[in-house]
């Protein structure tokens, strides 16, 4: 147990999670296949993956931090920089585009007072463009924490943001 506390210095994983990852890594012939699982778990707990998370993942899997980093930076759903509590992925692919996706993206920017890549001052929302989310029949759509919302009308944006604000303060 002392060993485990030492490798996760800033508490990015729950104790049981960390123990389960280490056990699983010991069982697998190729523990490296777990890299996305570990990064996703860290991100779920911490909101994003700090340098310590890359190092922790490397230690669990017995690989170097750069080997984790080159995977982490490839994927757009792994955040290597701090994001808001609710990262909003707005689909800008063809089906959403053909159903008012650009207007929806403008509405989000207006409502939150930020542009793509920025986070609101209260630390709650980050706006990010995303490629197709796989709900093309319900366009235009956005994804927040792997939950999909669509089709969204411009009027729905205020309500959605307010609901998330209430969730944050509850």
């Amino acid at each position: 147990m002392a060993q485990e506390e030492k490798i996760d210095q800033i508490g990015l994983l729950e104790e049981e999670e960390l123990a389960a990852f280490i056990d699983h890594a010991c069982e697998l012939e190729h523990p490296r296949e777990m890299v996305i699982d570990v990064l996703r778990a860290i991100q779920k707990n911490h909101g994003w993956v700090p340098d310590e998370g890359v190092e922790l993942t490397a230690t669990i899997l017995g690989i170097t931090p750069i080997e984790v980093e080159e995977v982490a930076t490839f994927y757009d759903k792994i955040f290597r920089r701090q994001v808001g509590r609710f990262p909003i992925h707005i689909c800008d692919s063809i089906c959403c585009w053909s159903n008012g996706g650009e207007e929806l993206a403008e509405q989000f920017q207006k409502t939150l007072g930020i542009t793509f890549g920025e986070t609101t001052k209260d630390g709650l929302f980050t706006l990010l463009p995303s490629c197709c989310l796989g709900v093309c029949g319900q366009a235009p759509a956005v994804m927040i924490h792997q939950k999909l919302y669509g089709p969204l009308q411009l009027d729905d944006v205020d309500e959605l943001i307010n609901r998330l604000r209430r969730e944050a303060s509850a």
Partner: protein
Amino acid sequence: MSTPQLLFKNRRPGETVFIDGYKATGGYQGLEMALKDSSPEEIREQVKESGLRGRGGAGFPTGFKWNFFPSGAPGPKYLVCNCDEMEPGTYKDGVLLAADPHQLVEGMILSAFALQTDVGYIFIRYAYEQQADYLRKAIAEAKAAGYIGKNILGSGFDFELHVHGSAGRYILGEETALLNGLEGIRPNPRLKPPFPATRGLFGRPTTVNNVETIANIPHIITGGALWFRDLALTPGSSGTKLYGLSGHFNVTECFELPVGIPLREIVENYGGGIRGGRKFKACLPGGASTPYLTAEHMDVALDFDSLEKVDSRYGTAGVTAFDDQTCMVAATFNLINFFARESCGWCSPCRDGLVMVRWLLETIDNGQGTPEHLEMLKDQLKNIAGNSFCALAEGAMGPLAGLLNHFEQEIVDHIETGKCPFRK
């Protein structure tokens, strides 16, 4: 007319069927039959006879793919299901798994038996976490029922099945990039050969098949190869297909219909026409990488061979419609923007060429294009297609080829008038 429902047999709005419901309509009968009465060779033969072609976009005959697989080779071998499904306009696998996840689980076990692989992975995209949860539950149920594990149904066949979540990026749908992703290394595509059947996951023989392809296997086993062939409307085709409708249709839902259905039926009967009383102008017949069809293609049958004859592709049969107010330059810019952003950057035709095409389309769409820009577009099409490391850039050239084939006059109008004729 009504199409026999195989894949959507158990589909009900807002519901997910698990093991009891799945078995109630004949689920796992194919597996029980096959493990009792058939050899792996017989199943492979039946799949070959059925004429099933890959449902993930490329349309490679599944039986042939399986024939390359060294099922008798000693040591670990892998079956991988590609549920990355990230091509814009394609959402059928997500719908299938949200309705009836056991179909894929049974299909995986049957396919693994046919190929004699002892480990399977379902590689699933980040946005389909709900479906991944359904699959984990279905796999646990199948394990408890003795369909997964050691000595399945007393046959002596062992099989383990894992769900592997991804974290975004379209390139993971390319099968060798997917294998790198599964291994936990940076997912650039691999050089082929060696093909995955020889050296795939962890350097071992591997077959990668799409969700819908594998979900068809139990139906082929229970219904028979000839019956499956007869489900299609055109000679040389076989089976049903999931058509995901999107864009400007009145109805944007996913339907199970025969392979070979004419475009007109999709547009008029299932899509309910174009919204707002507008006219149909064009569609992507099978995802973002398939060249446009236009109103003159209404009687073309939607199947692999018929669409190739009109310089397009069947792809994934995700049909995205555009109304008569759509600027096809702008639509193509949107599509190329997607491919340019999703390029992994490994080879220069893709990394640099797609950015160049994007810039050309943007310039023309903004009314700043010249006749040279049009020539440059044609030049890029010629030089990118066929010269990239994997199929991503090749796919990106689909909509550009469609634009130049059918809508060159629209490009010329932009250039001559110095503005987009559709922008108000």
